[in-house]
């Protein structure tokens, strides 16, 4: 019982992180039907930006107090990721707005490789994992079930922040003027243009928002696991994409639910399915394929659109 509970806790924490990244995937796909492969790297770059700032820029007086440093790092991570996402949209994707669909996807692959390598080459000692500044919130809450179910405080932070941000984003998209413009652009770019919306600006906004969320996720990731590495973007990016598809791509609630589902699949598959941890990754992909084949619109797939 306590094992199951613990695995669910593990799954929810990882799942919240993945959901946070998946929001960026889902929004971008909703608006320009692009699988932004490089989004996982945006997440990674945000983490490096924040850690780099904390390590090389901020004075040590600041970096010793976690309650002070962590918010700063989250903001910096969000900013760095946002800027990278905006630049990426502007210089890599926008010129291809009307190109055949393969072109932006291949570009996204290129951006992904280039971003990862840029960090590896230019960030000091980035070839190996980089420790996160030791500001993590120590300790764990232990639920009194069976042998006890520990929940780390830094994990609770992830879940709370992810849910709050997802909720805020949902409110933004549904209730603000800009949010409506985003939805209008997602429906039909040309009609939106006729209605006085500048689709380019809306698209940039989408990338910026998705990027910022990924940046926050990057810092929370580092805080929870206590290190970052250049591979973290690829794997978590794929997970996040899977989550976005699972939840119904283009759907904000779906992304969060999908993320949680992926987290749970990973932790529970490692525990209960044959092959254990060695195959948990495989199970996630099996689920992905099954979902794409049998229910491509995902859990919340009313906005599913397949343009041939």
């Amino acid at each position: 019982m306590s094992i199951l509970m613990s695995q669910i806790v593990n799954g929810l924490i990882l799942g919240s992180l993945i959901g946070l990244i998946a929001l960026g995937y889902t929004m971008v796909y909703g608006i320009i039907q692009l699988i932004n492969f490089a989004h996982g790297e945006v997440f990674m770059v945000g983490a490096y930006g924040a850690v780099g700032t904390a390590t090389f820029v901020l004075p040590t007086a600041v970096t010793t107090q976690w309650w002070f440093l962590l918010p700063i790092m989250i903001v910096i991570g969000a900013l760095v990721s946002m800027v990278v996402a905006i630049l990426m949209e502007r210089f890599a994707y926008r010129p291809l707005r009307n190109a055949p669909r393969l072109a932006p996807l291949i570009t996204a692959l290129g951006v992904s490789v280039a971003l990862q390598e840029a960090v590896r080459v230019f960030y000091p000692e980035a070839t190996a994992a980089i420790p996160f500044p030791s500001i993590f919130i120590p300790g764990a809450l232990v639920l009194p079930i069976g042998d006890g179910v520990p929940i780390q405080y830094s994990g609770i932070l992830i879940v709370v922040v992810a849910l709050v941000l997802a909720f805020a984003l949902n409110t933004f998209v549904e209730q603000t003027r800009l949010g409506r413009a985003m939805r209008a652009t997602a429906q039909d770019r040309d009609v939106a243009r006729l209605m006085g919306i500048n689709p380019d600006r809306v698209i940039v906004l989408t990338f910026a928002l998705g990027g910022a969320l990924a940046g926050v996720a990057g810092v929370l990731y580092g805080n929870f696991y206590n290190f970052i590495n250049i591979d973290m973007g690829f794997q978590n990016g794929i997970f996040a994409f899977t989550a976005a598809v699972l939840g119904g791509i283009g759907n904000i609630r779906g992304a969060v639910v999908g993320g949680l589902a992926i987290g749970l699949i990973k932790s529970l598959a490692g525990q209960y399915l044959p092959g254990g941890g060695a195959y948990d990754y495989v199970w996630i992909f099996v689920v992905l394929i099954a979902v794409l084949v049998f229910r491509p619109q995902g859990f919340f797939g009313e906005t599913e659109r397949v343009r041939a």
Partner: protein
Amino acid sequence: MTRRRTVAAAAILAGALALTACGTNRQEAPGTGAGGASCDTSKGTLVIGMVAPLSGGLSALGLGMRNSADLAVKQANESCAVPGYQLVFQAEDDQATPQVAGQAATKLASDDNVVGVVGTLNSSTAQTVQPILAGKSIVQVSPANTGPSLTRGEDPTGAPKRQFESYFRVSTTDLVQGPFAANYLVQKAGKKNIAVIDDGKTYGVGLANEFAKQAEKLGANIVARERVGEKDTDFNPVITKIRPLNPDAVYYGGEYPVAGPLSRQLAGQGLDIPLMGGDGIVDAKFVELGGREGDLATNVGAPTESLPSAAKFVADYKAANYPEPYSAYGAFAYDSTNVIIQALKTALAGGDYNPETTRPAIVKAVQDIKLDGAGGPISFDEYGDTTNKLLTVYTVKNGEFTPIETGTFEG
């Protein structure tokens, strides 16, 4: 558009040139590379090659190997180690994939001036490189391969059989290190319920397997045998899985980038038991990444402090100002290079280099070599493995790996 780009390019170019200004780096004695002006290099240039991953995910280790070997070659040139010849170091990128490694090895093998090759890092690349170099009798000394079958064939313990006369390694095999760790953990530290985790890679799986075998032989209980993804970062599911089995120690086969976080996540889940690993986790980064006080590791050779040659290597490496750290296999790469240089000297014995005859002579000289390296004394057994079975157990104390005891593994 065209013009703007041209202008931008010109501006960047101008900026780059302005940075360097109108200076030069002209030296007094041109054309001889760093120093070495006083040595006699009249007989030409000989090449020491390397095959290692210099790009991609494993480049941290590969670049450390490259720099360390480069340091050894530079020092040899400065000290005129091989009279009459200038040594050149040529590192080839294998991208950690076998076919590229084969290509790199072929490149080196088809150069008549190559006297020996240091590398590889991965066992799978070594498998491709071995026959290519062996075909030309070029000696290969690996600082990092640990798979027993590379030297002892398919059945390394039952029916060992030497694979290639020209292949040697200064690193110790899983057959030595795993059991040594098991001896300590079970007999000295008294751990009876051990969870074994590996990362699915050659080094980690081999080490974990050999550890588990010996630990069971000694009566310990292997409560779990788990694997984590090599790019994974979230180990909580695995930890949750082993927690109810009440292990009193975790043995991890793999390297520090995973081991550090794994150790910390163990504590995070309330499992306050020591994590033990092999030489792959002995790195200052292990602690930075989450390694805890009391974690254990085995490493080949005697502790660095007790070995003047090791301390000298560390100091020299620092003085040479390489951009990358020497990392896990730096010292061994340095030793491997020195093995080749010394063997070359022996084989030449003042004579002239001739690929047909000198190369086999080098192989023979390596087989018989006796050297004090940065990782301890070096010599090779009948399979090409290092005879240096001296290992040290370390523990993390005050944030650093501190030696506990040094011993020799016997059978």
